[in-house]
């Protein structure tokens, strides 16, 4: 089974067979999966989807695998939280948080792309998988490779947050730290994939891998009662996710699973690594690579692979893009935690802070439905907020001391 016809070049349209290829040999454009949508339309209904398990694989006809998922069958279907408290603070009517900080098994949206990529890697017969990572992807590949019985190599910049490193090493994978930034790591991984013939999920399996991100968009629409929101704010690193959410919406419309959509897609970056928002704000589609300098390491990509296409997704949808400073992103993390009880990582802080900014600028109207994309977990990037929180008082185990503390607190309030 499976509805994949093959791959085709996104630029020149040249068709390719269903193989571990990612670049067009003629024009060097990226390859993408080509589906038989007529075939999918005949079988995939809301009713069929609703009858299935609450995982990302309930949309399996729209994922690029031939058989059943063999890796990560439990991934996805994370909560879409109606964020009334945050909505009140931001002065908007209808706000949701799509919360992949509790995705299974490694607490980020990367579990989606990895279960897709590793299922595909097994179908292709690979024994060794790997990735270039800013952290979350490495966690997901390492954990799911264990499930899959595959050997894994995780290649990362040497200076990642401790939570990201521990959260990879614990799975007994091979971690290689590289002196340099993510863009250096990514280039190295392209060379490694060529030399060793491994499945580097975000390099030579990229056309398949990226498709897993669409499930984030499908879930938002299903959870809203089979409709698309008017605005989605999305963090951007390589820029792939925002393009895949756009694709998810278009596919649901094409398949008649939702009636129509006028969703504006808004991109969020940290100011210290903002090649995509800079292009959008400068009204160009030419991405000028930068050297990232931000604490939002999970989205610190200076030369985004899908930069051009993410600008296009934003522009076509009528959305906008903004970036925020490290201080603003920390405030974003705290704001989400203190209104909705959700502890997100730096990238989520960026997204919340950008949503706030876009609402203040009037780019997102107060009376329209908005989804904020939270894609990672705050416990992995504790360094970001370590010195930005209240210092707890220490007392002896004495009621008198506690009472004194309470009186001090009351006095401070009045």
């Amino acid at each position, binding site marked *: 089974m499976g509805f994949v016809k093959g791959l085709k070049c996104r*630029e*020149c349209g040249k068709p390719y067979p269903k193989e571990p290829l*990612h*670049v*067009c*040999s*003629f*024009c*060097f*454009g*990226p390859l993408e999966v080509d589906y038989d949508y007529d075939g999918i339309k005949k079988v995939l209904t809301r009713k069929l989807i609703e009858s299935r398990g609450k995982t990302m694989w309930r949309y399996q006809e729209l994922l690029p695998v031939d058989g059943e998922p063999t890796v990560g069958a439990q991934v996805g279907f994370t909560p879409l939280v109606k964020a009334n408290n945050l909505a009140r603070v931001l002065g908007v009517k209808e706000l949701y948080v799509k919360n992949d900080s509790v995705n299974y098994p490694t607490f980020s949206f990367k579990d989606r792309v990895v279960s897709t990529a590793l299922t595909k890697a097994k179908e292709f017969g690979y024994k060794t998988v790997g990735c270039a990572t800013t952290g979350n992807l490495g966690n997901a590949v390492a954990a799911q490779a264990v499930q899959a019985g595959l050997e894994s190599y995780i290649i990362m910049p040497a200076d990642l947050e401790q939570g990201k490193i521990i959260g990879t090493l614990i799975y007994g994978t091979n971690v290689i730290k590289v002196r*340099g*930034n993510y*863009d*250096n790591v*990514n*280039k190295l991984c*392209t060379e490694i994939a060529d030399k060793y013939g491994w499945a580097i999920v975000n*390099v030579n399996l*990229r056309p398949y891998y990226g498709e897993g991100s669409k499930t984030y968009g499908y879930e938002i629409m299903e959870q809203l009662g089979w409709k698309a929101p008017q605005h989605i704010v999305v963090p951007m690193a*390589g820029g792939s996710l925002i393009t895949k959410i756009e694709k998810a919406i278009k596919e649901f419309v094409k398949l008649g699973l939702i009636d129509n959509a006028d969703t504006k897609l808004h991109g969020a970056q940290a100011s210290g690594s903002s090649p995509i928002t800079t292009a959008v704000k400068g009204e160009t589609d*030419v991405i*000028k*690579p*930068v*050297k990232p300098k931000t604490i939002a390491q999970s989205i610190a*990509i*200076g*030369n*985004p*692979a*899908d930069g*051009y296409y993410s600008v296009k997704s934003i522009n076509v949808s009528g959305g906008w893009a903004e970036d925020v400073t490290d201080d603003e992103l920390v405030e974003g993390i705290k704001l989400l935690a203190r209104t909705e009880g959700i502890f997100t990582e730096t990238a989520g802080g960026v997204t919340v802070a950008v949503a706030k900014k876009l609402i203040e600028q009037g780019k997102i109207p107060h009376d329209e439905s908005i989804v904020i994309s939270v894609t990672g977990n705050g416990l992995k990037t504790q360094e970001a907020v370590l010195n930005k929180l209240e210092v707890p008082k220490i007392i002896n185990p004495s009621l008198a001391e506690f009472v004194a503390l309470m009186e001090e607190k009351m006095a401070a309030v009045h």
Partner: protein
Amino acid sequence: MSVTVRIPTPLRTLTKGADEVKVEGKSIKDIVENLEANYKGMKERICDNDGQIRRFINFYLNDEDIRFMSNLNTPVKDGDHISIVPAIAGGNSPAT
């Protein structure tokens, strides 16, 4: 006016395996036309139907991306070095 052009592996079938070739011209546009004249089939690999450099091909003139200069109209001078580099989905990092 002769410049040295570095040819990426996938295009070396057109240059009989040469990884560097000498080409005449006063601008990047001239260089592309003369590459085509010397190595037939080169232009359609490098340029789209509108004659612009393909989106996933990077042209560097002495290590500077021509998109941040004057693109095809960027002037070149004797002894300059040009590199043609496929972008390979983020696999390239001129910023570092």
